[in-house]
């Protein structure tokens, strides 16, 4: 049965909404396949506005990996803004893909990528607009499987009632394995229906199926145990790890939207994973071990991507890009290759050390040196030991001095507020640091127009990190510390005018904390707040703390728990955590020991340079660290003759 495009109906609504171009698709390198030529049909969603979702690397990679299969088609959908949602409901237009404007309800699987928990309400809108029952238990064979992925999928318990499955870790091989299972099931005539398909997926270990696990609670509200309710379902579901990034050089043809997006550049991932061991960092914990992409593959991906997209900026992505074993060679090689072009390079996520200034200088060889960003994360030396961010004040001053001396005018410093064991004094140290930065910078550059911007946000404890047991700081104290810091900087008569402060209030962090360490009972809060009209929680103009708290009040009325129980309560080692049955590879004992080390201000090194300290990942997952150097050489680019110049042949 073929599926009709909803575009004729949608087209009538577009002249009446903001930025209609975000709903029409037509991206360069998008793929549209005939529906009837394929067996398995995926729809991938990034649950935020198109302008945020379109650059997402996870979606772009899986989109291509899936579309390379002859038996599979893959399209994309994004969250629609409330103005269009209203018109769609009034006119009976369902959630649609932007590729061929097919109704999302007609696909076999809806994969939703969660970089953050704040996309949960948008997923509910999409499921509902697609005509799919909100609760997984009410779905049948005619509805797509709703599958969560991305970092938030490492604890999908809060959304377990809305999803059919969750995939932990790298998606490239996992989506193919799921596709194989769906294809075999469909070609057998779908025996046993939806339940049988979910059983096959759960048994294979490729995906966590919440419906096949029961959660029991103690009277005080803590979890008693989580156990499979079917034979053959694994007790714990493990994450997926792609072990050779050179074999997976995606995206090969990045999507280039016509609409403006938040990242107007091409991204190339230069490695995955990070073992710096920052204790607050969920990404660093759940993506271990470090797997580098080789210099040769990176160079090929850059050259190919530029040709396919026409972008003028390349971002070299990873969790800490300057840590690539051949980053200096890569930076110099690319800077040489693109020296005489308008192409520029950027390296987000840099560490605080002088080597990075050389790198930054290399990358900006023929461009402007406007701003550099560093993330010391903690204001005092003491708190940096707690979070294992091994940066001394001396390092920081030396680094920024080098930056100002080589012509950079603005340095941005990222910090967090509300870290475990933190006192007002730890945060106030930031004001002193910024003062020292400007002082050293003026001396080094001989200029008075240099600036330092301090950006600070509230810390949210995350699952699968040593801080998973920590109490989150309440928003009142968070805000009062931020105001004290702001006032301290304003009172700096000497340099205060050269220091900017940007901060976010603590309220959204409370909701993020509730969702990220939530269990199945939190699902009721999400549904309630969504029914009350809450959408686009990642946008400050749409976020409503009061709506969330009112919804929690209703949803937790008959429960032994409340928002504070999930957020500002410290946990014991003996407590069963909502995500203990989801396996990131990290040994729980090791995480606990690291938590205790944090409290004692003991630092831990990076296992790339010191012997293994048994975090558990490689042992458990059968993986290993993959780092260079490869000692390859990046050759100059061959000159491609222009196809349009006169007398250049035919």
């Amino acid at each position, binding site marked *: 049965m073929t599926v009709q495009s909803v*575009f004729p109906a949608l*087209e*009538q609504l*577009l*002249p*009446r909404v903001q*930025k*209609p*171009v975000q*709903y*029409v*698709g*037509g*991206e*360069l390198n998008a793929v549209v396949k005939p529906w009837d030529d394929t067996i398995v049909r995926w729809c991938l969603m990034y649950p935020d506005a198109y302008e945020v979702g379109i650059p997402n690397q996870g979606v772009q990679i899986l989109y291509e990996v899936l579309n390379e299969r002859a038996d599979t088609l893959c399209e994309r959908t994004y969250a629609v803004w409330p103005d269009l949602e209203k018109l769609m409901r009034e006119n009976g237009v369902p959630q649609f893909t932007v590729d061929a404007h097919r109704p999302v309800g007609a696909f076999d699987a809806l994969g939703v990528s969660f970089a953050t928990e704040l996309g949960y309400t948008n997923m509910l809108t999409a499921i509902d607009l697609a005509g799919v029952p909100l609760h997984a238990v009410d779905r049948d064979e005619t509805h797509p499987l709703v599958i969560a992925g991305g970092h938030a999928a490492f604890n999908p318990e809060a959304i377990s009632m809305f999803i059919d499955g969750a995939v932990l870790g790298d998606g490239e091989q996992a989506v193919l394995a799921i596709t194989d299972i769906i294809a075999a099931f469909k070609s057998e005539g779908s025996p046993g229906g939806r339940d049988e398909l979910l059983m096959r997926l759960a048994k294979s270990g490729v995906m966590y199926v919440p419906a096949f696990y029961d959660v029991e609670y103690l009277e005080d509200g803590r979890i008693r145990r989580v156990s499979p309710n079917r034979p053959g379902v694994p007790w714990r579901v493990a994450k997926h790890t792609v072990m050779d990034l050179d074999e997976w050089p995606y995206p090969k043809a990045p999507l*280039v939207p*016509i*609409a*403006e997006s938040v990242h*107007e550049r091409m991204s190339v991932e230069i490695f995955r994973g990070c073992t710096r061991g920052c204790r607050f960092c969920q990404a660093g914990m759940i993506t271990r071990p470090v797997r580098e992409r080789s210099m040769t593959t990176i160079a090929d991906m850059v050259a190919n991507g*530029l*040709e*396919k*997209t*026409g*972008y*003028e900026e390349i971002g070299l992505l990873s969790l800490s890009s300057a840590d690539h074993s051949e980053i200096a060679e890569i930076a110099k090689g690319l800077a040489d290759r693109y020296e005489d072009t*308008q192409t520029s390079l950027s390296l987000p996520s840099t560490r605080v050390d002088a080597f990075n200034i050389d790198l930054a200088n290399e990358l900006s060889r*023929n*461009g*402007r*040196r406007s701003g550099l960003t560093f993330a010391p994360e903690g204001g005092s030396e003491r708190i940096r030991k707690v979070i294992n961010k091994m940066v001394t004040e001396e390092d920081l001053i030396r680094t920024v001095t080098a930056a100002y001396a*080589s*012509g*950079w*005018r603005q340095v941005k410093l990222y910090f967090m507020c509300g870290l475990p064991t933190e006192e007002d004094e730890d945060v106030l140290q930031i004001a002193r640091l910024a003062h020292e930065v400007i002082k050293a910078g003026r001396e080094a550059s001989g200029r008075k127009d240099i600036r330092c911007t301090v950006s600070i946000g509230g810390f949210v404890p995350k699952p699968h990190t040593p801080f998973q047991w920590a109490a989150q700081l309440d928003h009142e104290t968070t805000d009062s510390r931020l105001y004290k810091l702001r006032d301290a900087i304003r009172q700096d008569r000497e340099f205060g005018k050269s220091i900017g402060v940007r901060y976010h209030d603590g309220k959204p962090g409370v909701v993020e904390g509730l969702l990220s360490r939530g269990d199945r009972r939190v699902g009721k809060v999400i549904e309630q707040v969504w029914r009350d009209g809450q959408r686009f929680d990642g946008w400050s103009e749409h976020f409503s703390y009061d709506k969330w708290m009112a919804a929690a009040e209703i949803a937790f009325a008959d429960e032994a728990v409340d928002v504070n129980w999930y957020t500002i309560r410290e946990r014991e080692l003996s407590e069963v955590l909502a995500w203990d049955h989801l396996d990131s590879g990290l040994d729980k004992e090791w995480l606990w020991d690291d938590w205790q080390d944090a409290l004692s201000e003991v630092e831990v090194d990076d296992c790339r340079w010191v012997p293994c300290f048994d975090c558990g990942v490689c042992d458990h997952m059968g993986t290993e660290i993959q780092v260079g150097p490869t000692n390859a050489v990046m050759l100059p680019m061959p000159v*491609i003759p*222009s*196809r*349009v*110049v*006169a*007398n*250049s042949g035919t």
Partner: protein
Amino acid sequence: MARDRDPGREIIPAVQKLRIQHAKRDRLRFTSHRDFQRAFERALKRAGVPMAYSAGFSPHPKISYANAAPTGVASEAEYVEIGVVQVVDPEKLLAVLDEVLPPGLDVLAVVEARTPDFVARLEASHWRIELPGTSQETLQGALDAFMSESEVLVDRMTKSGIRTFDARTAVIRANVEMGADCAILQVVVRHGVPAVRPDDVLAALKKVADFAQEIPPRVTRLAQGPLLEDGWSVGDPFTLDREATQA
């Protein structure tokens, strides 16, 4: 200053200018002018066009855009001029640029710029306005009422507030046709300040006659160029450049 783009960097002057006519069709009619500019600049890169760049802090490719059709309006007659640092073959540029642009943004013609004052040559536009759900009689009645007036003031919200202007004088010629599921208004409008756009004409029709339009209209700019001797036909603005090239 080392921190800025090297001032010693050589700025290569444009050796040739080319004028490009392109279409904006189907779903890509929802692209705004800014969206189109970005997509077009990237397409020039992918096509390997040796663009001339402006001097300064952040060099821009030399591109001039003329009279872009509003967001949501399709067009067969949009015009762009580019400057290049190597002589480009217009026919090759047409083929390669069309290949690298997404379907819906289609290159229709390219000429080498041989004459001055191109933008001044774009004197008028011919619009086709499809009105689904409207009968031919209703539309004809509204149009007759409109054409019998010498002035019809309409309001348009601009960045500086509501602006009131005459939408009638700029309309040189208009007629009504019947389409498959709609009535069609064909209208030739002289360019001026402020430019009278298709939605202004529709607003004026609604003002002078009892004429409601529930479903959003589908609008296409069919032509843009000099007014010919008959006083109402819109000609091809590339004719002078073509003649100069052949001469």
